[in-house]
């Protein structure tokens, strides 16, 4: 039960809403004739009440406005009759027109106006205004010459039906894709019409639309149809090109006109007009597809009649500058819908996407002109080049067949091009993508490297630093040998003493005791002389002792020294009293020298 109840309730609600809107429901709207107004300049606010079968409408209450002056008011009542699908719909509109002037610069808001009608309160939406210093120019609505030719009647004398209508005529009802259709929109009237404007602006969905004429004022021409005189005003003319096959519809369009009525009241300031809306009937166009049979590959969408021309702007180019190939398609047809022709790959040439220019005008209802394609061509090297012939195919609706046009080929020569890439490589060269380089080839041995650097170069460096130290030492030594006599003597002595000691040792081995002792003594004294820079042979024993003490040689060492010297002396002069142990004496001498 509950499941059923909900939809049922909804249905009831809908029905009641529909009923409410039908029974005396009205529309209450507010509008201004311009939203940007000059300061102090008069503008119009229209509060209109629209509804079917309306009874008398009370005056709506205008809200209190501090920044806006009300200069005057008037009202107009009109019956709006529209014919849709042959049925007449009668609507009444009561307009309350207020002449207002703004007193402040900036943004202003006209608050909502309210209206009580049959126990209900309606309110309009607030309107935003911009008030400027200088009056803004505003597009004026179409103004007709009141009382156009042959239109003396006013509304009250004859019925509306058949005497006021919007006519839309198409030159053809069955066309190929891309074939032009001329559209003519005109207002036919037997009344005096004051002004008007589009209620539903004509749009042509599914068509490429080439504007021919747009009326900005009524320009009535007298025409007699079935013995009745009409004023006919062209409102719009256009040429349409269907884009895709199938059925295309030119939708119904609406036009509002103000028909002059006989003045009913002398107090009616703005005069009395009746605002009427007329709607046109939709028109269905049958669009035939272009035949697939025999459609050439070079077809680029052209339908009509064309001629083809083409030229290069230069036949010689230098420094790799581009030449331009201009291909022009001239004739009648859907020029704007034509795609650029395809130019094939040419070895050594880079053909860029073309620049397209349309130069189209409408003459006698047909669209004619020139479509220009400019292809920049960049030579990729030096030499003679040839751009092959350009072929364009189009469809001729008169013969119902395709036609081919050709122009070219075009030859030019290039020199001094900066791009040194060889022509063979440049022909259609395209970087398809980048990738990593390939792997290294097979090996017969692999390195077993270490991530750490070798250590021995550091050792080598330290050693070389050592040689620098040695060199410095040697250098200073050799310099001192030259400049310092004592140093030179000392450095000489070591070698001398060594030699004497060695000699002494040899003598000992030969059992030449006398020679041994003499040599040992000489070595010892010579060493002392060199060591302390003394002239030892010239010194007495005591002088030598005091000299050694002065040079801070320890007393026991001096004693040991003299002991060795004494024993040598004794041995030299009394061989029989020679030391019992010459070896021991030799060691003692060496020991003494080491201690000094």
């Amino acid at each position: 039960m509950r499941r059923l109840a909900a939809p049922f309730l909804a249905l009831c609600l809908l029905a009641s809403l529909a009923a409410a809107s039908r029974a005396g429901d009205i529309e209450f709207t507010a509008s201004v004739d311009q939203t940007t107004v000059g300061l102090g300049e008069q503008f119009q606010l229209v509060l209109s009440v629209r509804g079917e079968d309306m009874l008398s409408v009370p005056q709506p209450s205008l809200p209190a406005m501090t920044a806006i002056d009300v200069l005057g008011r008037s009202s107009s009542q009109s019956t709006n009759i529209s014919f849709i699908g042959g049925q007449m719909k009668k609507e009444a509109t009561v307009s309350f027109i207020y002449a207002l002037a703004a007193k402040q610069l900036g943004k202003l808001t006209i608050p909502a106006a309210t209206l009580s009608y049959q126990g209900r309160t309606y309110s309009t939406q607030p309107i935003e205004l911009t008030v400027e210093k200088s009056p803004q120019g505003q597009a004026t609505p179409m103004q007709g010459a009141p009382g156009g030719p042959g239109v003396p009647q006013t509304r009250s004398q004859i019925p509306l039906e058949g005497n006021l209508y919007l006519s839309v005529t198409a030159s053809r009802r069955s066309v190929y894709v891309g074939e032009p259709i001329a559209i003519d929109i005109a207002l036919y009237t037997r009344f005096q019409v004051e002004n008007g404007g589009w209620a539903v602006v004509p749009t042509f969905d599914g068509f490429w639309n080439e504007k021919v004429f747009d009326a900005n004022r009524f320009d009535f021409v007298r025409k007699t149809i079935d013995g009745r005189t009409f004023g006919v005003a062209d409102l719009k003319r256009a040429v349409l090109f269907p884009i895709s096959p199938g059925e295309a519809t030119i939708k119904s369009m609406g036009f509002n006109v103000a028909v002059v009525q006989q003045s009913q009241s002398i107090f009616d300031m703005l005069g009395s007009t009746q605002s009427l809306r007329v709607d046109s009937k939709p028109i269905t166009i049958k669009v035939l597809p272009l035949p697939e049979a025999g459609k050439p590959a070079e077809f680029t969408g052209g339908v009509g009649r064309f001629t083809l021309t083409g030229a290069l702007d230069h036949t010689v180019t230098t420094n790799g500058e581009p030449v331009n190939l201009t291909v022009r398609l001239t004739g009648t047809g859907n020029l704007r819908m034509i795609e650029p022709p395809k130019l094939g790959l040419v070895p050594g040439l880079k053909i860029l996407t073309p620049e397209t220019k349309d130069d189209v005008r409408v003459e006698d209802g047909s669209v004619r002109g020139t479509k220009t394609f400019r292809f920049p061509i960049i030579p990729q090297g030096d030499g003679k080049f040839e751009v092959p012939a350009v072929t364009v195919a189009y469809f001729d609706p008169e013969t119902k067949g395709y036609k081919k046009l050709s122009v070219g080929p075009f030859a030019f020569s290039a020199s001094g091009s900066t791009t040194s890439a060889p022509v063979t490589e440049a022909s259609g060269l395209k970087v398809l993508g980048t990738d990593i380089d390939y792997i290294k080839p097979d090996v017969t041995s692999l390195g077993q490297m270490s991530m750490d650097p070798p250590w021995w170069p550091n050792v080598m460096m330290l050693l070389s630093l050592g040689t620098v130290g040695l060199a410095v030492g040697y250098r200073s030594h050799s310099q001192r040998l030259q400049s310092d006599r004592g140093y030179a003597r000392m450095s000489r002595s070591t070698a001398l003493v060594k030699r004497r000691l060695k000699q002494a040792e040899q003598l000992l081995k030969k059992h030449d005791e006398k020679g041994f002792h003499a040599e040992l003594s000489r070595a010892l004294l010579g060493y002392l002389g060199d060591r302390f820079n003394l002239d030892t042979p010239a010194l007495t024993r005591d002088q030598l002792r005091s000299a050694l003490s002065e040079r801070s040689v320890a007393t026991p060492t001096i004693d040991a020294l003299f002991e060795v010297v004494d024993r040598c002396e004794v041995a030299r002069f009394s061989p029989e009293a020679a030391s019992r142990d010459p070896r021991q004496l030799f060691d003692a001498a060496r020991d003494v020298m080491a201690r000094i």
Partner: protein
Amino acid sequence: MGPLAWLTVLALVLGPVQAYNEGNRLYAQKDYAGAVRAYEEALRAGHDPRAHYNLGNALFRTGKIGEAIVHYRRAYYLAPRDHDVATNLAFARAYRLDKSTASPSPLAHLADRTLRSLSRSEAALLAGVLFTLAGLAFSAWIVWRVRLLGFATGVCALLGLYAFLAQQLWAGEVAERPAVVVVPEVSAASGPGDEFKQVLLLHDGTEVRVRETRGEWALVQLPGGSGGWLEQSAIDRVY
């Protein structure tokens, strides 16, 4: 399991050269995963720039950009004058999700290029030899004072300085402890643990430096200075 065991046997029996050549064969057959294993076997014995390069290629083919970058960088470290290595390293870097925004100044770039024409070992060797020669020439000059020796000292010392700077550049890079993110996506936290706030999202191949390690976690830093803690398994150290 089969091919892996087989490869291990292969490496044991035939050695790194054969493993490397086997890797090349598998790579040519587009068995990149197999090639990766073979090259890894070849590298077990020691580093070789060619093996690192080829392994980088195989890893790149299997979509492991980060690991490929690690091996390309090792190959570059060992053979910096190899054009293929530099090309593929740049290529792999361009393939990353996280693009490096830091671009060095042209002068620094030139200096870097000049100094990095020597590998670290070459630079160390050259610096050692040249400084030794300079020392010897200087010693000889001290003793004999021949002008030619002084000139030789100067030349050797200057060249040695160049090699020394090159070596220092590499040493500085190694000391920075560079690493590469080797997982598709990882978020870095503000501390060494899952419970810390996630501060940075890193992707495969992003190059970072390891500033600190704590257990399983490593604090990494991007060249721009921002950084965070990652699990060490998400990155691979280059050197």
